[in-house]
């Protein structure tokens, strides 16, 4: 019966113009069961992504091909609940992690920081594919790369703390974005020139929605590489860089 209603719904013709949940029909005034369960499934994926964990073993194994040290770090937020309630804790390293970084302070051009953010799933699925393209581009351009950092319970700004301790000129934070109903696997990449604790979002450039059905890793890597070069040239990142960059769309 539901199928019959759906097929005869004259609103169906509107669906080609948007991915919004239009023309979903009704039973009485309520949403039909099929649509209700589709919504619940999308929400379940998003909720699971929020509580997903970084696949540290797999990431370390994958990243080993770059012959760079890989460091395992943790923010001050000891649990996911704490992380959700205290964003300030997610922006700082715990003491053990901070101490670990003190031995790596040779000046480098780029620090790459991989953090779970609000979807470790996104990071597990997209990081290696992106770095496989980006790291060779950086090396070919004679840029030096700091040890790769994996961070649990991290927010974007933890990259400032890390890159500053690593003595790097630029930080690139790859982080799981807040899952939406349409995608729970979106990764964001945040670039900051001259990173130091206390910076805010206007000092960064963001490339968003990196995932197979969103911004492909090839485009994301090209954009990031372009931004890194521009940031070195102009000695800045953030609002000032974005405004002048024709390539960034």
């Amino acid at each position, binding site marked *: 019966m539901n199928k019959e209603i759906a097929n005869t719904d004259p*609103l169906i013709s509107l669906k080609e113009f*948007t991915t*919004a949940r*239009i023309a979903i029909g*009704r039973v*009485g*005034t309520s949403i039909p069961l099929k649509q209700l369960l589709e919504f619940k499934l999308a929400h379940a994926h*998003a909720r699971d992504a929020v509580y997903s964990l970084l696949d540290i073993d797999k990431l370390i194994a994958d990243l080993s091909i770059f012959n760079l040290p890989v460091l395992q770090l943790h923010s001050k937020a000891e649990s996911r609940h704490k992380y959700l309630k205290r964003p300030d804790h997610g922006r700082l390293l715990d003491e053990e992690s901070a101490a670990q970084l003190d031995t790596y302070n040779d000046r480098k051009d780029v620090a790459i920081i991989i953090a779970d953010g609000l979807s470790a799933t996104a990071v597990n699925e997209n990081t290696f594919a992106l770095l496989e393209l980006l790291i060779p581009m950086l090396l070919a351009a004679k840029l030096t790369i700091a040890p790769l950092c994996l961070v649990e319970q991290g927010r974007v700004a933890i990259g400032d703390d890390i890159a500053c301790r690593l003595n790097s000129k630029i930080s690139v934070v790859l982080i799981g974005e807040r899952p939406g109903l349409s995608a729970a696997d979106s990764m964001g990449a945040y670039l900051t020139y001259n990173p130091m604790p206390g910076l805010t979002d206007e000092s960064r450039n963001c490339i968003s929605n990196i995932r197979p059905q969103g911004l492909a890793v090839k485009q994301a890597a090209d954009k990031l590489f372009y931004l890194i070069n521009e940031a070195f040239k102009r000695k800045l990142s953030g609002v000032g860089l974005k405004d002048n960059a024709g390539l960034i769309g």
Partner: protein
Amino acid sequence: MYKFTIRNIVYRFDDLKSLLAKASPYRTGDVLAGICAESYEERVAAQIALADVPLKTFLNEAIIPYEKDEITRLIIDSHDDTAFNLISHLTVGEFRDWLLSDETDTAVLKTIEAGITPEMAAAVSKLMRNQDLIAVAKKCEVVTRFRNTIGLKGHFSTRLQPNHPTDDLKGVAASMIDGLLYGSGDAVIGINPATDSPSVVMNLLKLIDNVRLQFEIPTQSCVLSHLTTTLELINKGAPVDLCFQSIGGTEQTNTSFGINMALLDEAYQAALSLNRGTIGKNVMYFETGQGSELSANAHHGVDQQTCEARAYAVARRYKPLLVNTVVGFIGPEYLYDGKQIIRAALEDHFCGKLLGLPMGVDICYTNHAEADQDDMDNLLTLLGVAGCNFIMGIPGSDDIMLNYQSTSFHDALYLRKVLGLKPAPEFDKWLMKQGITDEKGNLLPVNPGNKLLAGIIK
């Protein structure tokens, strides 16, 4: 200095600001700000101490200094002593009982509106249970008009929110038609643009205005761009019905939003000068939400609910058509779960109504909050009972541009059905004329020949 002793423990509260913070029901934002009560007992001690504070104290002890904050100056300078007279002898606790008494009816509440400061409203709300907040809000009636009448008792409106991630005009139009055919859109057809580009905003404004004119819809439109963008477009002759802005409860918060009262004054006058309302001159649409001040690092140690109430002082200066508290959008570090979101929404609705504002609520949550559709159903039903003026209408609850979940077109239909509520009267007539609803307000099957379906997307 305020204090209260429980079993030999003397709880001291340095000033009114910290007393209000400690008396606030638990929420993550106040913990994050470091101003929350440290135990259940301390919270109740603060509430007991707060109950004994005379309302007059709020006129003499500013929680953010008069010299430092233009909103404090607005609150003090615009306070109406005559309206306050009736309640001037009460303490906060007595005020709570007075609000709930049978003698305090809709008309009485209307006469004291201008005598209540945001801090008084926030304070009394902290001594009220959810049912108290509902019971008193239900007695208030705030009616506003532009092309239709919003807020009448027994009526309940919706903002049709046809957002699209790239502001694609056909995409927006498709969601808008879907919504109209579900009877949504009497509060406003309001789009959050994905970009603040003036040309994009102009095209969206023209799109809604054309549809409104073509189908003679008795409603108003709004594209929720920054105030300065709207002002620029007004000067270019754009069809602006309502002027939108997000506002907060401290001067510094509004600075972070790129606005101040002088700019709001200018925008208000500009919107009024267009004279586009047919039956009323309420031309402003404001959005607020607990936590904005902390998020902007501009809270001055004031709890997030009191900050929110102070934003209503800004709103009421401009006699808005709509005020919308976007309660669950801000995230779990401010309102952690369904319980906190529900409490905050009822507080905001109550405080706004008590201060004379046409309150609507964006009943919503993000995917990292401990909340789901069941929590939103609870809140929706509670707000319907409380007499909330309007909610959002979004296809299937899923805003594909802002990436959060709000109320669907279906949700509004549910509420109208279970509580016997009607849309704005002018819009109700239009729905019947278009064959969208019958005379009892029931939705009719969509006629494939409906001109709304054929007329817009070419």
